[in-house]
């Protein structure tokens, strides 16, 4: 029962903030509501006992991505992003509704076909130990992910170097 109550609270927070995020006209408010959506999702991970994923969600999305958005907002002029309003045309609403429906059908079909729900109900609520996660991240055996891990770290390094190269001002010679 406690799980269901917590899930309902989180769902209300996530859905309410998500709607507010796209309907508000002020860009900083949109960023704030986005932050609340991300917190809500982290809460759902904690509800599922995925504490590592929850912590990663808070630190990467709340601490990293949202701060990045806020800094980006600060770097452009105050007037360009204020009061942006988009008028929706009828055809775009239809296309959007169709895309949503297609997404829903895909998710439901995958869920029903693969029996994820039954498998999830079968396992008990236990935290995955940190040691197992760590070994899976940098191990090279079966179901271990050292290649993606190294690839992503190399990719991020390239991004950082590229960012510095773009931001750096050449001295006048």
């Amino acid at each position, binding site marked *: *029962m*406690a799980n269901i109550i917590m899930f309902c609270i989180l769902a209300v927070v996530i859905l309410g903030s998500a709607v507010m995020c796209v309907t508000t006209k*002020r860009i*900083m*408010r949109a960023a*704030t509501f986005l*932050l609340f959506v991300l917190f809500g999702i982290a809460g759902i991970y904690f509800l599922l006992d995925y*504490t*590592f994923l*929850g*912590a*990663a969600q*808070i*630190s990467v999305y*709340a*601490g*990293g991505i*949202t*701060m990045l958005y*806020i*800094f980006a907002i*600060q770097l452009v002029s105050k007037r360009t992003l204020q009061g942006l309003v988009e008028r929706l045309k009828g055809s775009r609403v239809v296309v959007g509704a169709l895309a949503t429906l297609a997404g829903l059908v895909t998710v439901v079909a995958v869920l029903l076909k693969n029996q994820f729900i039954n498998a999830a109900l079968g396992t008990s609520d236990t*935290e995955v*130990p*940190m040691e197992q996660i760590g070994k899976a991240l940098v191990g090279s055996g079966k179901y271990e992910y050292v290649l993606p891990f190294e690839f992503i770290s190399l990719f991020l390094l390239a991004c950082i170097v590229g960012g510095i190269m773009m931001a750096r001002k050449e001295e006048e010679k």
Partner: protein
Amino acid sequence: MFDFSIVTSFVDNLLRQTLGLGDFWTILIECVLVGLGILVGYALLAIVLIFMERKVCAYFQCRIGPMRVGPWGIFQVFADVLKMLIKEIFAIDKADLLLYYVAPFLVIIASVGTFSFLPWNKGMSVLDFNVGIFMITAISSIGVVGIFMAGWGSNNKYSVVSAMRGAVQMISYEMSLGLCLICAVILTGTMQMSGIVDAQTGPWKWLIFQSPTAIIAFLVFLVSGNAEANRGPFDLAEAESELTAGYHTEYSGMGFGFYYLAEYLNLFVISGLASAVFLGGWAPVNIGLDAFDHVMNLIPGIFWFLGKSFLVVWILMWVRWTFPRLRIDQILKLEWKYLMPLMLLVLILTTAWVALV
């Protein structure tokens, strides 16, 4: 050694068996009790820390500090709180009021969140996830958002400049803070707070005695923790000579009170983490002599933890009232050009130490 789980299991038994409550109600009542405990501890520590800061600051400046309210001025903090509570709350003109009101709560949530991870005693840690250390760094990053929103919601250019500085400084120093904690995780082999303290119980088992690299990590942790709490020589976010009072200029009453509380409690959280991770937390001083160790073990762990934490708090206050304030470029240079490369090197040395010794 005193084990606090006697008390917790007594309460649990009382609710479950004596009163015959179900799982749901038991856990709900226990959660409420624990939450109340955390908030009371938070408030009490804030009172102690604010009074301590005033007195320590006074003695370092050859003054005697507050003396009028109560004997030796011990009721000064209560008078301050009363004054803060009866201040007029005002709304800022042409500002984003939602952000203005939400920001103090984000800061205080980050502060209480990290506070509840501290291991007080054996069997007395509130949140004890197996990703504990990682979770602490994650939650502390919420505070950055709160500070930034406060600056933006104040509709005041000094506040925005201050919030920018505060956010840049905190994001930068989180880097070396995290690297210090990773060194500790490598040496103890766990991320769980209780596990880290357990690994340090016994004669000469505190982390700073276990490896020379841990000493460097401890010192860097103190520096970057000080910067993370926006204090000491790094308090340029509220450089009063140039930015009036920084990002909380426009707050009055408890809005300002929350920032004030969070600042002191962040100081305590940093000190508590330093003492838990590097100085053994509630682990008593053991030197290998049976008689001495036995006497030390009789002292409950919470006194050891508070004693060590307040020692670190005192050192950080000493630093704050001794060193002059740094400029923003000096702060960032210190982090990115000296501390972070140093910590990367220390990280490699620590792994080598663990692999070889």
